[in-house]
């Protein structure tokens, strides 16, 4: 079957299997920033935006993306780099494998929450796991990025 999507601002038609998940579709079409860190929807590494909202591309049947606009980190490079620089400046990049999914969630949070508290930030980002940093460095970077004390 075929789905018609807008991917990072461009129109595209993808041939898909009916039991294919979006993460595999996207990787097949060159968006290699999408990583699969688990197979139980727990880790958040595969986070993309559907119509601007963060979802797990590993758990979204590709057919459900039909007619929607999909955004991956490849499509928001400028914003992503702005936050990525802060992460890297603090050494909180480490292995980087969780970063694209994490950054997509941070950027979505910035769009959705106005004046979040530290607790709001932690709550929003809970679905993004990291094994390297212990989360402290990531929180420092997010607070700096969002201008939160």
């Amino acid at each position, binding site marked *: 079957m075929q789905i018609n999507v807008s991917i990072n601002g461009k129109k595209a038609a993808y041939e898909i299997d009916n039991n294919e998940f979006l993460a595999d579709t996207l990787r097949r079409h060159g968006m290699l920033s999408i990583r699969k860190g688990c197979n139980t*929807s727990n880790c958040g590494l595969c986070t993309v935006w559907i119509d601007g909202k963060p979802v797990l591309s590993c*758990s979204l049947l590709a057919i459900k993306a039909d007619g929607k606009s999909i955004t991956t980190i490849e499509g928001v490079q400028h914003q992503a780099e702005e936050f990525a620089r802060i992460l890297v400046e603090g050494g909180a990049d480490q292995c980087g494998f969780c970063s694209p999914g994490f950054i997509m969630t941070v950027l979505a949070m910035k769009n959705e929450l106005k004046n979040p508290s530290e607790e709001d930030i932690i709550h929003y980002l809970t*679905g993004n796991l990291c094994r390297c940093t212990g989360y402290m460095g990531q929180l420092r970077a997010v607070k700096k990025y969002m201008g939160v004390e």
Partner: protein
Amino acid sequence: MFTMISLVQPATLDEAYDVLMKSKNNTILGGCGYLRMGSKRISTGIELTKLNLNYISEKDGFVEIGAYATLRDLETSPILNKHFNGVIEKAVAGIIGVQFRSMVTAGATVFSKYGFSDPLTALLALDCDVELFKGGRMPLEDFLSRPFEKDILVRILLKSNGRKAVYKNFRNAASDYSILNVSVSRLDDDFRIVAGARPSTARIAKKASALISGKFLQSPPDEALISEAAKLAQEELNFGTNMRGTKEYREELCRVLVKRAIEEVLECK
């Protein structure tokens, strides 16, 4: 990983139901969060996006939740947050993460009667009906006790009657399944005590609820009565052992959580 031979997106409920009943292995697809962890063999998957069931609205004294409303929709709904002491938000907020909750549907959560479910416990403490396409409308409690029957859950209805509810859950790691969850609600002198993730599905502790409700008219419940009700709830419900906790521990937790939930609901304005 599950396998699926074909997929349809019907335009009407009738169409959806026809396809569902055509073959034993035809299945309604929700958010697929739980589905992708198993290895079910599906003949035709029935995807309901075209039915526009992803709404939360108020009508005729009920809050209506469409089957395709996501847990994130429930969490952030200004309508739901106005009612029931915001208990629905509290019940779903701790589940995995924002992205996950944006995909898992209320309909699938309720229809599947998951033992580990957090929102099911809170819903059962409220005055909740479910509407099935074929089975019609019935109280959630009835639906939960019926044997499995193929059907489509269309919407969940909560009577917006001023009932206040409190939700308590107990987990070790913050984004783990609950070891136990409890919800206690109150409408005037009517209390309802529910425990879930026992590890089995949420159930009302009827005797304990009756105890508190009955005594309430005489005098506000004191510590002794609350403890008695909590103990009764633990005795009348069944608990089990799994990787996360033993039966004995769950029984202890039930007493503590029910006690605390009753104390808290008494303080709700």
